[in-house]
């Protein structure tokens, strides 16, 4: 490995950084080798912990000068390997840049540094009657910067939209190290939707170092219901019915029997015994609407054979109902040594047939699959359970995962609803998009990062040489030859 370029970067930035910002110790660097997806690991050549936009600009400028790739990392909870470092690159750690700079309830805005933890922002805004709406299950630890990079959703995005909908401005350090202000506090800015493009760009278009977010008024009333059903089919039909009754719940989540078992073991959430599936339904808004909607939801659920219907009486009970759902991923660690979590999307009306197909795939591959998902928008999280220590199981699990994603695509869905593509699903992109589609998206990359230094190797399996028209590539791609990319 050629370390001379890394050393040049280090020499350039060291005089301007405080002690403790630079991490070279091998053991310490190793703790950063993966995010929440531990199966993809790479030890970074150098780790820089930043606390200001200026420090980020300085580091990226140096990387640009010496042609060194860089990767930004928030809290390291991503599930697609988006923060997986580059072996010959710099990992820029943003979790130390974590101040809430301003909360302005009258303007319904907050200005935060990217390392601020999602839930902490909501907690700080609560006393003024506001919160930050995007609520991924990892919100107690994931960062706002990470939410921007992945365009995170969460259980409540059905009604409230994704992170893009809650960002009105950012400060961006471009891949060349320039500092650009985009947007601000006003709700709309003229021109191309740069914010819309940056949110969800997974760190490949530069690094965001400050975010102006839109805060949402806390609803007058919130009702959380836990409803047990005999089967996922029954629960799925109840969901369709609820939506066609004209109700837009704040969230509808479903878990199947296996997922319930895991959650029960982990957090003792006391979900209905013996249920084939549970729905967690949350309604929020003016009290009178919530009251009316609750009755409709219960009635429709009973139409489909709902067993127990539990309505949370206070915040504590509400928290416990959600705890089961939000711990589901990590909880399956208690019923299985290993697992792969998928993130496919299907049209919601196809839920029943798709779950049946997943069952079949699981049987054929000889693995178990627990299902947790956002029933309201068709975003599935099949958890493929396996034991990596048994020979062949890992391959079977990966085969099952791949087949599930193909299934989602064949239904007209997506390979990722909220976890992002990262390094984990880049190889599936050609199954969802044609070469022309992928090349077109990469035109954007050429506008932001023609030198391919900002989180390279993520999202797209084949990088595009900037300046060439979209076309099928043949032979070895020049970036492959330069050692910057790998063809899947």
């Amino acid at each position, binding site marked *: 490995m050629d370390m001379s370029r890394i050393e040049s970067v280090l020499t350039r930035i060291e005089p301007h950084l405080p002690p403790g910002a630079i991490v070279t110790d091998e053991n310490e660097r190793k703790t950063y080798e993966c995010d929440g997806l531990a199966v993809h690991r790479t030890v970074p050549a150098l780790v820089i912990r930043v606390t200001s936009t200026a420090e980020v600009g300085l580091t990226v400028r140096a990387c640009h000068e010496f042609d060194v790739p860089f990767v930004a990392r928030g809290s390291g909870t991503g599930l697609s390997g988006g923060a997986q470092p580059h072996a010959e690159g710099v990992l820029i750690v943003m979790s130390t840049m974590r101040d809430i700079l301003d909360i302005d309830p*009258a303007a319904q805005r907050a200005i935060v540094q990217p390392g601020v933890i999602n839930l902490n922002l909501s907690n700080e805004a609560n006393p003024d009657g506001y919160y930050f709406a995007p609520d991924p299950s990892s919100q107690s630890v994931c960062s706002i910067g990470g939410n921007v990079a992945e365009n995170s959703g969460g259980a409540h995005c059905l009604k409230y939209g994704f992170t893009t909908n809650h960002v009105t401005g950012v400060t961006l350090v471009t891949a060349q190290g320039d500092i650009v202000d985009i947007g601000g506090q006003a*709700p709309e800015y003229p021109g191309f*939707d740069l914010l819309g493009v940056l949110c969800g760009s997974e760190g490949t278009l530069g690094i965001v170092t400050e975010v102006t977010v839109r805060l949402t008024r806390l609803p007058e009333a919130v009702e959380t219901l836990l409803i047990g059903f005999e089967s996922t089919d029954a629960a799925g039909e109840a969901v369709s019915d609820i939506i066609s009754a004209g109700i837009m719940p704040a969230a509808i989540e479903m878990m199947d029997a296996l997922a319930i078992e895991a959650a029960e073991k982990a957090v003792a959430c006391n979900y209905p015994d013996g249920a084939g599936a549970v729905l967690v339904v949350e309604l929020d808004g003016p009290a009178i609407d919530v009251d009316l909607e609750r009755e409709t939801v219960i009635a429709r659920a009973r139409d489909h054979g709902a067993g127990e219907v539990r309505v949370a009486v206070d915040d504590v009970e509400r928290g416990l109902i959600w705890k089961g759902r939000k711990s589901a991923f990590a909880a399956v660690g208690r019923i299985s040594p290993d697992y792969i979590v998928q993130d496919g999307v299907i049209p919601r009306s196809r839920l029943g047939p798709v779950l049946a197909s997943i069952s079949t795939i699981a049987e054929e591959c000889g693995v178990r699959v627990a299902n947790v998902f956002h029933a309201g928008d068709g975003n599935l999280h099949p958890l493929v359970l396996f034991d990596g220590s048994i020979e062949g199981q890992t391959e079977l699990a990966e085969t099952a995962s791949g087949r599930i994603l193909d299934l989602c695509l064949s239904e007209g869905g*997506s390979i990722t609803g909220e976890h992002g593509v990262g390094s984990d699903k880049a190889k599936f992109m050609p199954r969802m998009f044609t070469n022309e589609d992928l090349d077109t998206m990469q035109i954007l990359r050429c506008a932001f990062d023609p030198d391919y230094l900002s989180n390279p190797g993520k999202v797209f399996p084949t990088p595009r040489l900037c300046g060439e028209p979209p076309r099928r590539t043949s032979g070895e791609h020049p970036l492959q030859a330069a050692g910057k990319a790998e063809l899947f």
Partner: protein
Amino acid sequence: MSNAHRDGHSVAVYGGGTALDDHPPGETPGLLIDMSGLNRIIEHSPGDLILVAEAGATIADLKDVAESGAQELLSDFPADRVDSGSTLGGAIATRAVGPRRIGRLPLREVVLGVTVVLADGTIAKAGGKVVKNVAGYDLSKLMTGSWGTLGIIVSAAIRLYPKPETQGYVEIPGAEAALGVLGSQMAPAAVEIDRSPGAEATTVVMVEGLPESVESRTRQIIEAYPGAKVGIEPSWWARRAQAPVTIRASVSPALVPELVAQIARLEDAIGYPIQLRGSAMGVFDLGVGAPDMDPAIATRVVLEHLRTWDRKQLIATVLCAPPAVWNEVDAWGEIPGFALMATIKDQFDPNGLLSPGRGIGGL
């Protein structure tokens, strides 16, 4: 488009022709593409709350299709544009939005995916037809509001919404109440402020939903604000005010009352009529001048004044003006991120064929 690219012809796109007067006229195109024939409904799935249609389909037709499933389009569109035949592609390309934007998701979230034709004729799709999708870059957001300068939208998937049973309106004199309503827990669907030249501003709140809920919430709003009373949909609702020049101003919600007050004072100071109409969330159209007056100087003065505010709090650009005025005023001012936008335009359309001069900043 491939042919135009080969022969070096610039291209303009015609949907319903309802936004021709907005944005500078741009260069005379070599080729005009009429999209009205591309108007099929490709897929309608009420159960999944999505509608996929070709770009030439009119919004009016799409509304009818949605109604057949007891639903409506998730985004609100301006009534005057819809009445004049606005098409799906045009509405998306010009980011046309109606008053119900407080409770609803913005247009960029409503468009789930687009198929576009690029400057060299490549057909590419971005996004999809499912509500949740973060695979790849969100090019459908890039295309939304791009005024045809990055690609030609040929089809789009949009979200539908259960049609609310009924609406209720509350009229409140002045603009101060708007902030309170916006920050209340009444979950209004729209909060519009209208101020005719020389007159007091009026705030109109709209709530929608089940009859009991609408009745209860309108009552609560009336009780909270002195002078408030039950209203009906105003004649100006979802329609743009007529004036020679329209300035689009976007401002932080906290500063809305201040903006309204300043416009009134400015009007007095320069002796020119300025109409203000828009959403209390902070997006307003300012109509400058009257039919028999030359609006150029007044426009310049208003723009200069608005640009004394911090760009992070308020930004103002010219939306609509007579052709001569475009050259006489600084229509765009300093647009945050403009350099990046110019680079993007350059990458997507290196030969400058797509609607040259129609875009923001003259792109």
